């Protein structure tokens, strides 16, 4: 896995609350045996009309959304189905992080395992961010994973929480399966004791 240390980029605001993984990537696009190719169907039912033409008013279809690194979502993002296709699709589109006040457990786990950062900010920062992006859609945020900070366009650096283990894995480009495989002895003795 690729190491993550710092990155920065523009922000796509999507103020909806409780965005579920069926919205992020509808189930009918899960008939794949691959991880790639999902980005074109990201938020499909919000992004395209009945004829499959892009809806110009949907934020992902606006020119300034292209190449953005952050999705700024409403409260409680990623509930519902366990599909890892959700972070795969977001990542495929180019996002590297999603910002909300709370994430569903499985979505959060799935994201971290793919080097996609679910960034929790408190409600006042969250409101503030929407306001900053409204004033300047071109504004950039930057993440320093080592320092656990999110730097806002006005220069303020906000600390975000992240599981220390996931953080170490991401900083060093180590994947969790490798970590688990190193516990072979412990697993074997557990199995022996519980056989």
């Amino acid at each position, binding site marked *: 896995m690729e190491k993550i240390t710092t990155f920065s980029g523009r922000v796509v605001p999507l*103020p*909806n*609350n*409780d965005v*579920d993984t*069926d*919205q992020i990537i*509808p*189930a*009918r696009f*899960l*008939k*794949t*045996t*691959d*991880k790639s190719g999902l980005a074109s169907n990201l938020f499909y*039912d919000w992004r395209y009309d*009945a004829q499959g033409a892009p809806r110009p008013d949907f934020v992902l279809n606006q020119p300034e959304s292209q190449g953005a690194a952050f999705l700024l979502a*409403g*409260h*409680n993002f990623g*509930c*519902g*189905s*366990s*599909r*890892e296709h959700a972070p795969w699709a977001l990542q495929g589109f180019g996002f590297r992080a999603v910002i909300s006040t*709370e*994430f*569903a*457990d*499985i979505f959060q*786990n*799935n994201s971290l*395992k*793919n080097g996609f950062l679910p960034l929790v900010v408190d409600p006042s920062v969250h409101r503030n961010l929407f306001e900053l992006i409204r004033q300047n859609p071109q504004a950039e945020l930057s993440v320093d994973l080592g320092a656990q900070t999110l730097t806002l366009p006005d220069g303020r650096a906000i600390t975000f929480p992240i*599981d*220390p*283990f996931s953080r*170490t894995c991401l900083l060093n480009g180590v994947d*969790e*399966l490798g*970590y*688990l*495989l190193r*516990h072979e002895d*412990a*697993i074997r003795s*557990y*199995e022996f004791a*519980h056989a």
Partner: protein
Amino acid sequence: MKPRTLFEKLWETHVVAEEPDSPSVVYIDLHLVHEVTSPQAFSELRQRGLKVRQPQKTVATVDHSIPTTDRSLPLTDALAAKQIEQLSTNARDFGIRLYDLHNAQQGIVHIIGPELGITQPGMTIVCGDSHTSTHGAFGSLAFGIGTSEVGHVLATQCLLQRRPKTFNVRVEGKLAPGVTAKDIILALIARIGVGGGTGHVIEYSGSAIRGTSMEGRMTICNMSIEGGARAGMIAPDDTTFEYLAGREFAPKEAAWDAAVTRWRQLPGDEGARFDRTLDLDADKLEPMITYGTNPGMGLSITARVPDPDDITDASGKAALTKALAYMNLTPGKSLLGHPLDVVFIGSCTNARMSDLRLAAGLLKGKHVARNLRVLVVPGSQQIKRQAEGEGLDEVFRAAGAEWREAGCSMCIAMNGDEVGAGEYCVSTSNRNFEGRQGKGARTFLASPLTAAASAINGYVTDARTMVN
């Protein structure tokens, strides 16, 4: 020793290793696999040259993308066919037992685990599917995982997990006639919201839970995830053991007695503490129905759809406005009498024998409303046969409903069984998200009783007006 909850007992006996600052390495006793969330995990194993560590603790079935029509016909959906084929290749290559499309025991993964007696008290159970929480009804710790984690469990039989918090939901009292287990869980989610249980494992307790059958308990645990909880669980008791006794993979004879003795130790100790508790009064519950686009947007069937103008929080107001616009509903109006296009009776929430019997009880000798499409999809092939043995299929067919083969069907609409854009469906499934049952589909989640009563009238109906 400090009194422990059911969860704590399970957690502590399954921790393989713990290092400072790291999540625990937790052993998994049973790994269920289905076609949609596993292919990329098997690819990962191949790329790394890894084997499945415990093929005998891994069980696969197909359910999500399969047709529920005549199984002797070839699959028409090439993508689904490829996914199904991929699972059989993976099962063969890695030595995993697979209940495939033509297996007499095939069914929805969360239905066949318990039905075959594979799901047992005290186990840790995972599946690349959020409704794995269903299995917690047996006093197991069961939760959904993503595809990366499916790979972890295949390769190591372990998962990295942070210890979740505990949440006790006590449901005391007795359900009134016409009120079911589905209404308990819909009421809880309406109360706590879709994020209310985030980071927690719920343990359901109280007289109303004790008085509920295993099938009802599964319905309740199934939708724990809809309240944001990782898992839901219920302490095993005689009801649990009676359900399991004699099932194909349940222990037999002396091993059974030993298992029951062990299982009796699982319920939480007197005085064990939870991080959080909540009480629900079963006596006061009414049939529940959802009006919005997440399972937390639910109300008593006699209540009125809330008004965004009554909500002060701006984002909450926006969310309700958006949901009502999608559903095309008027605030302040009751859903009773709302016309329907489709009724779906099925899914891992409500497609077991007791659900089908409840629905058939109302539909017997009646006919569903004209121009209404009614789909009844049993949760497994075994349930299908048993229902046919009891003549329920005849009741459904005579009433004008479609009687299908087992699968997820219109719960997730991956297989062509879908609700049309703008159409309204009363569904016994678990999710009413936008587009969940088909692009533009509008879902009202409810119990099998509400679904059957509404099917007869062609509009949302309080089943209590039909049962005596």
